[in-house]
């Protein structure tokens, strides 16, 4: 046996290039659409052009006779084994939700809903025949505008009798976590400040790069579904629960998946139809959506109205916050659609000590595309509201926006801190992140430039926006989910298998779709077991390999799944110890494990973990009665959420003649605890920022008065690219989380959550001087220019004055 002392350098904290990128960027990856099976048939969907209509007749005869067409199905053909699409989070016991069948029986309730499916021998033949399906509709009035819909002016689903799905309330007085918000507001009205606002959360389209795709193979003992999904385990469960196939007969594989952002945590009509049709025909089938289909039929995000009342003393101490939300569910209650705003309920108080809080959310059915989680899910909305309010309050009081925030935030020595929403924040240091962000940003210089531009009436004005965000992620403590009526737990599973050759196979129940788990998890295992990074193989996304898991969303994979991994690895070490002791002829108590090596205290004797793994594999010489395996698994259920935070500062130049916005600088200092791979974290932050900035400035899913998605292609739905963004100045502060071994916090959504209010606050900071109080997102040049013109008109009492005159 050789004793080496070249301890591997610490893997955690290393800028490892991502293992998965070689295959992803050289085209040697396997996306669902790349899968070709013998005899495979192709599906094409016939979709409703109407938002709300009665289907009076469907004539499939011509399509059925078209060449290479195998079958055409409509709702009349479906039976119980087609299943239904589930809502896993009924937020109240009396929540109203229409039944969501893969094909609606006789009434479509959004433009894009599938009414018939063509099955053909090629995708082109299926598409050609889909054009021949003749559907007669009787158009019905559609519930489109959210505010009209909540008033039940037109019903999205007439048989439900109302569009109101559920009313969910949290009240700090009732919960015993704080005072009475009405008292706080009336006190502030008589002796203090009350800020009242109504903000619009624009509707967003996740716009993942790989469109959704599904392949089903019904041959063999287990039925297999490949799907471009974030949630193979949940899809498997939902198929079993609704289509009558035992869970043990279902294998779901999420192969390489090209992005999701929440948009692929759905169970979809397309998947369910592929599943049912493959079973009907006993043939493999494939369906890959077009970009247009993706934009109109895959779920959308956000779409809320937020009515907000913030009470404070004249000195700037916040005394109460009241939130009244209206949230658009679209035409069906998606898998966690109703729960998204509820996730936000716990975050409106953010980093601040707010003594009284009331939150009420009304979810509403409309005849638009269904909505569900989109990067941040509930927390971006909450963060936007509070960070806008805090900047508005500072403006109202003539106070520095940082001073106001500091006056109200939780001081670093006050952790752990129980908030008015009832969460216990374990750690954080808002002072440190803020001080460092101000410095990197060059805050004072930019303020000086802002003053100069104001004084000289420069047509280009400068604005500075602040967002001191926090969020709750790492979904989720199962007990908390239970108390919120969520249909599942929030644990995660991992196993570690020591192979005979010394290589390590790690299986995680999380399901990466672009995040880089294979790399980050390899780094964790390399450190934990003291094995080379290259020797670790991370397996995921196949229910036959990853037998247990709850998948990837809500910035949970590292803080929940990573912790399960750490615990499984630690069990491997514990199991290996007696073997090492036996082989080294020492007592277990004298065995120490460090950097991959079992040593005997006070001696040079030792064995590497790979050597122990080899010995266990051969099993020639093990302690008496010992099972020949040191493999281990662990299931971790977090006891708390995880609370990353940070300070984001944005400077924009606003061209007051056109309303054009140009970003000047974006600095952020995020506290995401200990970092496994800085390069991956940087990538997550940059991408997250891009998406949050996009909500503020560019993206908007707009429907016309008949319910057609106007921004249904990338010509009109403006997704920014690198050319539209600046080089971000991203830094870190680190207060390790106390609720997981590695001290990590989630980073997947942080950038998106933090950036939207930073950008809008910056735009407003530039134009407040003209009397502008709000600009609806996305802050397009036209809107910014109109706001400036309107503000100036009020200022001067003339309606005609524009910037150009």
């Amino acid at each position, binding site marked *: 046996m050789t004793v080496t002392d070249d301890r591997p350098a610490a893997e955690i904290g290393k800028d490892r290039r991502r293992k998965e990128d070689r295959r992803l960027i050289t085209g040697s990856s396997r996306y669902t659409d790349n899968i070709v099976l013998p005899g495979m048939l192709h599906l094409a969907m016939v979709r409703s052009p109407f938002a709300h209509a009665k289907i009076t007749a469907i004539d499939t005869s011509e399509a059925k006779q078209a060449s290479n067409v195998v079958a055409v199905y409509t709702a009349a053909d479906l039976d119980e084994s087609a299943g239904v699409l589930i809502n896993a989070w009924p937020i109240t016991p009396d929540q109203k939700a229409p039944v969501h069948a893969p094909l609606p029986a006789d009434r479509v309730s959004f433009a894009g809903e599938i009414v018939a499916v063509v099955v053909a021998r090629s*995708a*082109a033949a299926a*598409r*050609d025949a889909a*054009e021949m399906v003749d559907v007669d509709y009787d158009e019905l009035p559609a519930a489109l505008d959210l505010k009209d819909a909540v008033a039940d002016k037109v019903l999205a689903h007439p048989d439900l009798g109302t569009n109101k799905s559920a009313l969910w309330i949290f009240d700090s007085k009732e919960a015993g976590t704080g005072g009475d918000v009405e008292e706080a507001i009336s006190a502030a009205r008589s002796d203090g400040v009350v800020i009242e606002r109504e903000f619009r959360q624009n509707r967003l389209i996740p716009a993942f790069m790989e469109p959704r795709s599904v392949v089903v193979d019904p041959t063999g003992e287990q039925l297999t579904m490949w799907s471009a999904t974030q949630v193979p385990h949940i899809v498997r469960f939902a198929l079993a629960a609704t289509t009558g196939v035992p869970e043990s007969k279902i294998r779901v594989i999420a192969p390489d998946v090209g992005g999701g952002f929440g948009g692929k945590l759905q169970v979809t009509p397309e998947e369910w139809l592929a599943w049912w049709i493959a079973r009907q025909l006993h043939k493999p089938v494939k369906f890959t959506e*077009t970009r*247009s289909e993706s934009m109109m039929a895959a779920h959308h995000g956000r779409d809320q109205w937020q009515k907000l009342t913030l009470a404070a003393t004249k000195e700037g101490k916040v005394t109460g916050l009241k939130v009244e939300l209206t949230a658009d569910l679209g035409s069906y209650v998606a898998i966690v659609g109703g729960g998204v705003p509820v996730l936000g309920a716990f975050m409106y108080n953010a980093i601040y000590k707010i003594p009284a809080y009331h939150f009420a959310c009304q979810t509403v059915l409309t005849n638009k595309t269904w909505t569900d989680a989109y990067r941040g899910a509930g927390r971006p909305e909450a963060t936007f509201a509070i960070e806008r309010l805090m900047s508005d309050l500072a403006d109202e009081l003539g106070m520095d926006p940082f001073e106001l925030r500091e006056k109200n935030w939780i001081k670093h020595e006050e952790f752990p801190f129980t908030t008015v929403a009832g969460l216990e924040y374990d750690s954080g240091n808002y002072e440190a992140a803020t001080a460092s962000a101000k410095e990197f940003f060059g805050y004072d210089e930019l303020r000086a430039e802002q003053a100069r531009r104001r004084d000289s009436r420069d047509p280009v004005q400068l604005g500075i926006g602040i967002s001191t965000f926090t969020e709750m992620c790492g979904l989720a403590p199962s007990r908390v989910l239970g108390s919120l009526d969520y249909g599942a737990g929030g644990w995660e599973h991992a196993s570690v298998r020591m192979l005979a050759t010394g290589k390590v196979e790690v299986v995680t129940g999380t399901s990466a779709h672009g995040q880089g788990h294979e790399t980050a998890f390899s780094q964790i295992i390399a450190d934990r077991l003291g094995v080379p990074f290259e020797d670790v193989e991370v397996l995921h996304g196949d229910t036959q390999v990853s037998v247990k898991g709850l998948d990837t969303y809500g910035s949970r994979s590292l803080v929940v799944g990573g912790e399960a991994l750490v615990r499984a690895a630690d069990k491997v070490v514990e199991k290996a110890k007696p073997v090492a002791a036996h082989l080294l002829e020492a007592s277990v108590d004298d065995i120490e494990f460090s950097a991959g090596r079992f040593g005997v205290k006070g001696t040079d004797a030792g064995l590497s973990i790979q050597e122990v793994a080899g010995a266990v594999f051969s099993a020639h010489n093990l302690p008496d009665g010992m099972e020949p395996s040191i493999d281990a698994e662990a299931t971790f259920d977090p006891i708390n959420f995880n609370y990353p935070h940070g300070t984001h500062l944005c400077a924009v130049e606003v061209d007051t*003649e*056109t309303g*054009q916005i140009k970003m000047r600088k974006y600095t952020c200092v995020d506290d995401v605890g200990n970092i496994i791979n800085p390069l991956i974290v940087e990538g997550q932050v940059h991408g997250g920022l891009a998406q949050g900035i996009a909500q503020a*400035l*560019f993206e*908007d899913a*707009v429907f016309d008065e008949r319910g057609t998605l*106007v*921004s249904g292609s990338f*010509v*009109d739905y*403006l*997704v*920014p*690219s690198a*050319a*539209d963004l600046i080089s971000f100045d991203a830094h870190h502060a680190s207060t390790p989380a106390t609720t997981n071994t590695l001290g990590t916090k989630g980073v997947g959504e942080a950038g998106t959550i933090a950036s939207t209010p930073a950008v809008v606050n910056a735009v407003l900071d530039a134009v407040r001087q003209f009397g502008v109080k709000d600009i609806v997102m996305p802050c*397009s*040049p*036209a809107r910014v*220019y*109109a706001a400036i013109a309107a503000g100036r008109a009020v200022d001067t009492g003339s309606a005609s004055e*524009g910037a*150009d005159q």
Partner: protein
Amino acid sequence: MIPAAFDYAAPATVEEALALLAEHGDDAKIIAGGQSLLPVLRLRLNAPEFVIDLGKIDRLRGVREDGDALVIGAMTTHSAVANDPLVAQHAALISKAVATVADAQVRNRGTFGGALAHADPAGDVGAPALALGAEFVIAGQGGATRTVDAADFFVDLFETAIGEDELLTEIRVPKHTGWGAHYEKFVRIAQQWSIVAVAAAVKAEGGTISEARVALTNMGSTPLRATAVEQALQGKPATEDAIREAVGAVADGTNPPTDLNGDADYRKHLAQVLTRRAVLTAAGG
């Protein structure tokens, strides 16, 4: 998405292409770079039975001088036009405008003639061609060739003077050697068609504008020449204030669209601001 099936031919000469057009009539469609036609086919907004590819006709490609004019072959790609030294020297306005079209991939496939024939009012090649008084050479059946002035070429939204059985072969641009030029394109994201854009070429001597050519993109159903503004600019000092005054009425009589990027009034306002900036930059200000 998958286009409906069609037959395809790639003739080697203009004559063969014209013969195919005559043969297939209404059912045929020309394809140049495909950057506008393919999206239309893929979305099944159109389903021609026969597609005639001009890609193999070498003589439709390239830029050459012909006396006082520059001749740009219809099949010259956007990137070839944008990088052509002759165009830069004699028609800088065109180089600058074409460089703002889409992204490098689209510019490498899309063609100058294809874009002009497509006549998207938000496209960026029409206004500079119009401003510089380009002439369009159109080949018809039986060896006929006619030349159409820019003023008559753009008929309406996606409609030009090219007949159903004709082909655009080349574009003749009068040389504007020594003129200052600028294309001011207003967009929200980099890869976007113009919300409004202004093409300006200015001949300035000793701080005075002696001649100006101005045309507007997306201020109506075709590119628009701002003749009144051109006249107002003539003889004015190349200063911001003088130009501001001269271009004040640029949006008069225009009929710009209203869409998600802004309404007609906003576009009219933009046209004023952008014209001032375009002219000022073109005049070297």
